[in-house]
């Protein structure tokens, strides 16, 4: 019985990791829609506000891909301690993609919610 529960927890854990990774790109674009942010600020904001706890290192290859796709841009600016920091911002293309993603996400979230036990049909 305990073994079954462990297996189930493990399966839920794997599913959560995949789910978080799947929405990470959307969450990054959403976070950058307010203002430009540097890497640590961005990932700690995501962990705090969206409760998406992924290994922080996964952020940087993803940022590289988003930049390559023309969705974000970066610039170096002085940080708090004087050392330069890389600030990321949405490009016009990224902003346009995000505008298209928001209704898709809302529709998906609403349709999954409607399937949950207790949801009105």
């Amino acid at each position: 019985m305990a073994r079954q529960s462990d297996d189930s927890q493990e399966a839920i854990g794997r599913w959560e990791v995949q789910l978080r990774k799947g929405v990470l790109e959307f969450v990054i674009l959403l976070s950058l829609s307010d203002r430009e942010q540097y890497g640590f600020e961005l990932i700690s904001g995501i962990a705090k506000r969206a409760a998406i706890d992924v290994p922080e290192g996964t952020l940087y290859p993803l940022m590289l891909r988003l930049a390559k796709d023309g969705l974000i841009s970066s610039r170096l600016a002085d940080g708090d301690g004087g050392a330069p920091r890389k600030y990321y911002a949405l490009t016009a293309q990224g902003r346009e993609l995000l505008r298209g993603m928001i209704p898709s996400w809302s529709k998906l979230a609403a349709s999954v919610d409607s399937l949950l036990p207790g949801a009105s049909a």
Partner: protein
Amino acid sequence: MTPAFTDPAARRRWDAYFYEVDRLLARADADAAEMRGDLEAHVVDSMAAASGGNEGERLDAALSRLGRPIDYLRPLLADQLIERGTLTYSPITIARGLSYAVMAGSRRAVIGLAFGLGYLLLAIFTSMALLKPLWGEHVGVFRYADGTVSAGIIAQSDGARELLGWWSIPIALLLAALLYVALTKGLRTLQQRR
């Protein structure tokens, strides 16, 4: 941008971590090279944001939250090596990228294995073309007395009739070339869809 550590053990752990990052990024494209600086800045910020603990503990916590370099850089390396390999038609680069893809996750593993099998088939066709002049009676398409047909490099071909003769060479080379182009274009299409 290495911080001035007061604890030599913490400095060694920092160096070991970024040695691993450098080792992996050496295989990546030039645009990924600046990622080392991004990661260093991240660890410095993460240590500065930590409230308690000594320097070594704050470093360990920051590196632990960042994750192992192999875990987050492997998918990037797989993508970049496959992309580079398919653009240059370099089988070694493609094979290296596929090996990273296989190790990087389940969906990637299935795709990596499928393409790996495709390239194995390609190697068999190429080997057939090369071995036919040397080992002609064992290479080709064979029909046995009971009507069964076997193709490829066959050790036990006694009593079987070879159907293609020397045509095995151009046919095997043509199939190898077609398969190579199809696999490479397929990989490139997959990369573009990601």
